[in-house]
């Protein structure tokens, strides 16, 4: 059975039909590019994915890294794969030419990452984290810090981490206790314990650059007193050569449900004098810098969840086309031959759901990539501002919807394959385990829902919400010209009206009712909101498909576009109607969870 990592046709559709990636070449930064160069980058991504990632993924999953008290050991194939990503330039697709990058538009660079993530999410984790780390230092570090750290991070000599979480401070970073003391030479001495730090120790690179959140002695309590530090595993001399080992030590490794190739570490900083750290930007501004990076990271979490959902869908689809089992209810007699399971409508339901979730999630994340690019390279100030407003507003949904529905898609991939999906001779159970992290890290599902309802929606007189609704209205207008999409447009219009009504009622209640009660169903609000956003994304895909079908395309394309319209139909028939029930819960300030007492459990 040969399953593709991703559907090449769908990537074409997303990049060049739904989003106009070719149009990006009109922007100065991307003027050297063409569809050809963008496709060439994707071809290289596929080659590296097929050669270095897919063949090792099961071994990486079953041979977790170990710690012997001195060093971390992992299967050598991980280093070969990480090196291949760096050597091929895939790690720095979006970076400047001068930094060894290819200056690809974000939407293409992120698709490259999605390819590799789909083929080996835990191995790719080292690269994506290192990039996020370098982006942060580049945005907020001094020129000297950029030279010292960013250059080797980009070239693959160093790796990077994000060290935020502590045993007593996960969702609530306000409570973190790692401390920093200023030394005479202007650097700081860091002391404290961090947990769950991904990539916190390994020998894949010469050095590891930790970005550590800590509290400077005497700083204000809470989020206002958090600063950000560069704390390397090895100090670096002023000529760039490697110096002594810093006081950063590995206390141990965590053993995880999924993502097993990516070390998850407990780190101790400064067991004696304090680990040497260098302040990034201003004191007490650390959380703001970290959030800058986390917004990018959240979009990458969405992409990662979508990638695993997409590849699980491709795998179970290929299986379903070839597995003979059972007969249709209409088949008479035991003598009839079994059908391939894709002939069972219930199996097609599960495949359609996966298609709707995974391709909906992917398109949503690519919208995030495009908006991120527009905020930086958009032609006009107006476009940049609008993109910034919309992106900031949609980030909780771009992070959360794929994280929630991606694992659901992977669960269905297992179900499609029956007992064969549950065992590790096939990778779908691993996809599920790998994907299950996504609603937990970078802000849990619950935390994201609070961010959306209590902060992002009311912000600036609902500015983000209004931009979003005006974008939906544009789509509704376009859909009204397509006879077969008219009904969907009406349904989406009603859903948006209901969302707006619910939102207004909740914002009103936030001022007049107990806030803990009003926010107690915030996750249902996120889900409501998310399903409306994804219904909109599907309608946009439907418009492209309907227009293409009107041009009488050749047979394979006809099937492809009909598949898009059918997934749209699935989403509007099976998923969007659920929002009606959630709207009712929300506007009634339903208190079922709120009223539940601890002692009643």
């Amino acid at each position, binding site marked *: 059975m040969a399953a593709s990592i991703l559907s*090449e*046709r769908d990537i*074409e559709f997303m990049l060049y039909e739904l989003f106009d990636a070719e149009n990006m070449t009109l922007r100065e930064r991307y003027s050297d590019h063409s569809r050809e160069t963008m496709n060439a980058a994707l071809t290289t991504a596929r080659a590296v994915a097929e050669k270095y990632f897919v063949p090792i993924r099961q071994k990486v999953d079953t041979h977790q890294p170990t710690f012997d008290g001195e060093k971390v050991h992992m299967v050598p194939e991980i280093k070969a794969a990480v090196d291949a990503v760096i050597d091929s330039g895939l790690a720095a697709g979006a970076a400047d030419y001068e930094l060894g*990058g290819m200056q690809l538009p974000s939407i293409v660079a992120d698709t490259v990452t999605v390819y590799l993530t789909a083929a080996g999410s835990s191995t790719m984790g080292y690269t994506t984290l290192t990039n996020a780390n370098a982006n942060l230092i580049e945005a907020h570090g001094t020129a000297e810090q950029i030279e010292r750290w960013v250059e080797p991070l980009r070239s693959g000599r160093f790796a990077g981490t994000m060290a935020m979480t502590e045993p007593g401070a996960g969702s609530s970073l306000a409570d973190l206790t790692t401390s920093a003391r200023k030394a005479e030479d202007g650097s700081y001495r860091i002391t404290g314990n961090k947990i769950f730090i991904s990539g916190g120790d390994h020998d894949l690179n010469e050095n590891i650059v930790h970005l550590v959140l800590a509290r400077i002695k005497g700083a204000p309590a809470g989020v206002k007193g958090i600063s950000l530090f560069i704390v390397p595993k090895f100090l670096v001399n002023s000529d760039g050569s490697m110096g002594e080992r810093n006081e950063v030590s590995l206390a141990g490794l965590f053993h995880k449900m999924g993502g097993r190739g990516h070390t998850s570490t407990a780190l101790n900083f400064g067991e004696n004098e304090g680990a040497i750290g260098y302040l990034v930007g201003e004191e007490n501004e650390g959380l703001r810098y970290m959030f800058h990076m986390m917004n990018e990271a959240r979009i990458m979490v969405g992409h990662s969840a979508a990638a695993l959902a997409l590849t699980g869908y491709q795998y179970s689809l290929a299986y379903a086309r070839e597995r003979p089992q059972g007969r249709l209810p209409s088949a008479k007699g035991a003598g009839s031959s079994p059908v391939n399971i894709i002939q069972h409508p219930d199996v097609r339901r599960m495949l359609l759901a996966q298609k709707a979730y995974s391709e909906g999630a992917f398109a949503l994340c690519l919208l995030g990539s495009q908006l991120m690019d527009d905020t930086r390279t958009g032609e006009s100030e107006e476009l940049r501002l609008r993109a910034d407003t919309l992106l900031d507003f949609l980030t909780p949904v771009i992070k959360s919807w794929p994280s929630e529905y991606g694992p659901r898609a992977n669960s269905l991939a297992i179900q499609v394959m029956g007992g064969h999906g549950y065992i590790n001779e096939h990778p779908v159970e691993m996809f599920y385990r790998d994907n299950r992290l996504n609603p937990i890290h970078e802000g849990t599902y619950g935390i994201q829902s609070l961010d959306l309802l209590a902060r992002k929606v009311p912000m600036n007189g609902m500015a983000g919400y209004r931009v979003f609704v005006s974008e939906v209205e544009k789509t509704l207008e376009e859909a009204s010209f397509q006879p077969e999409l008219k009904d969907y447009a009406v349904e989406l219009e009603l859903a948006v009206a209901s969302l707006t009504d619910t939102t207004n009622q909740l914002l009103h209640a936030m001022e007049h009712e107990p806030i803990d009660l009003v926010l107690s169903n915030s996750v249902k609000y996120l889900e409501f909101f998310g399903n409306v956003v994804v219904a909109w994304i599907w309608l946009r895909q439907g418009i492209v498909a309907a227009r293409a079908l009107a041009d009488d*395309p*050749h047979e394979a394309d006809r099937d492809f576009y009909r598949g898009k319209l059918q997934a749209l139909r699935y989403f509007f028939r099976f998923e969007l109607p659920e929002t009606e029930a959630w709207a009712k819960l929300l506007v009634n300030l339903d208190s079922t969870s709120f009223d539940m007492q601890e002692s009643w459990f």
Partner: protein
Amino acid sequence: MKVLVAVKRVVDYNVKVRAKGDGSDVDLNNVKMAINPFCEIAVEEAVRLKEAGVATEVIAVSVGEKACQEQIRTALALGADRGIQVETEGSVEPLVVAKLLKGVVEKEQPQLVILGKQSIDGDNNQTGQMLGALTNMAQGTFASEVKIDGETVNVTREVDGGLQTVQLKLPAIVTTDLRLNEPRYASLPNIMKAKKKQLDVYSPADLGVEVKSHLSQLKVEPPAERQAGIKVEDVDQLVDKLKNEAKVI
């Protein structure tokens, strides 16, 4: 030493091809295209010769419509120094390709020409041999190893009975088999550098060749669907079926 490598634009090996509804041809509309895998091996071998200091220049040539410049640039991104496109329309048969390549050989005077042993679309396995006949150059086909030794090249060939090594006088023609090497992929910075490399376009007339067609395609249809198998009761039944139904023993 100059090395000429021929590259062909074909359907990507990952694509499941379909016949057109009217059976006139394979449906190539909007289908992902790529460099023929055997040609990729040819490019890799040439680039390795250059890296080893044996070759001084690697020229990638493709015969086809303008779109095949994409595959030439792929070869340039993999390490070829410059490219040549011989512009033709529609599909051209192996003999015409061989004649056009002969024209390029005469212009460029390479010491070594490396081609794929066949392309995964036509599966003809003819162009290299025809070029050998037309140019009167020695040929080593189905190569699994190529070693340049002064004025000669030793080519190890994959033949039915195992491996056969032939020694050819340069200039010579080599066609590649799958095990010759494992091709690299283009690094992202090299993809951009390839855009700046020289790419010349010739017409068949420039090379003094008239494009003629000697073959016509009658029909393209998908292979018959494989029927489900059955389980036999015992060995006797198997033997009986092999004898009387399949008539193979």
